[in-house]
């Protein structure tokens, strides 16, 4: 199932949804927009985790920066790191 994963003090927290369920998709989209308004940036994660064929033109690029919600996407949401 696609999800939005956010790093936090427990490791990470994940919101998953069924892309065929309109209510769940709506809830996920609202969460995405809320995080976006709070300054988060989003990276697409591939379902097979870093093993996708990145040379394929038809493969959604793993780790790609995204700006709009797509109910099929597995996404990592994070605040921009702070300088240390």
């Amino acid at each position, binding site marked *: 199932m696609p999800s939005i994963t956010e*790093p936090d*003090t*427990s490791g990470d927290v994940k919101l998953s949804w069924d892309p065929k369920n309109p209510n769940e998709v709506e809830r996920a989209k609202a969460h995405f927009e809320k995080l976006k308004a709070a300054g988060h940036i989003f990276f697409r994660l591939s379902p097979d985790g*870093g093993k996708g064929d990145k040379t394929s033109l038809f493969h959604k690029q793993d*780790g790609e920066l995204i700006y709009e919600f797509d109910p099929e996407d597995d996404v*990592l949401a994070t605040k921009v*790191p702070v300088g*240390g």
Partner: protein
Amino acid sequence: MPEDLEVALDPEAGSLESLATRAITHAADTLAGYFSVTAGAAGGLSTGTNTWTSNVSSFLGAVSGNSYAFGSAGLSVMGYGQRQIEMVREDYRALRMSRARKKAEDKARRLFIRVVGESAWLDFKESRYHEIVSPSGVRYRLRPGLRVQKMIGYDGSMVEIEYCAHMPFGIPWWDTMVVQHLMLTASRESEAKFLAVANRHDPLTKYPIPELDRNAGLAA
């Protein structure tokens, strides 16, 4: 520590009195078992805390030949003073927090492996650093809890500068590695964003640094 005693000493469980009461219960039950006496025979335990503690005190005193005082300034449990109870409580709280943090780091490390892939993870375990090439062609080395090194030279083995940008403290270091990896590899835009927020530092020496690995408990 027995699981039931662990629960009895749970500092989040409530008042000091309830904490001590449950610790006494555990101790009394254990001793009753050892000496094959029933709770009834062990001083006529009642539901009232004061009666209960004085009965347990009598029981323990009879068994061991010592006397256990329950002063008005606080409870004394098995000879432990109030301050000692608080120290045990604090130690138990620290233990629970360190367990929670270790669990979080393990979870974050699994996310890191998922994002970078098994092959990169195996490389990391062998070399003790995670090396990436950004869309602008720059080679970086990443280590959990340490700065990002920008590598130069014909073989990419010299450190030109170090960048420090991380997630807020309290978030696992492996999560910071995930975010650094994604920002530096996703696009020129995200790489520029990372470099814009990171502080720059003169380099130490290239990774791995065995002494830092040993101090962090990461030495192979």
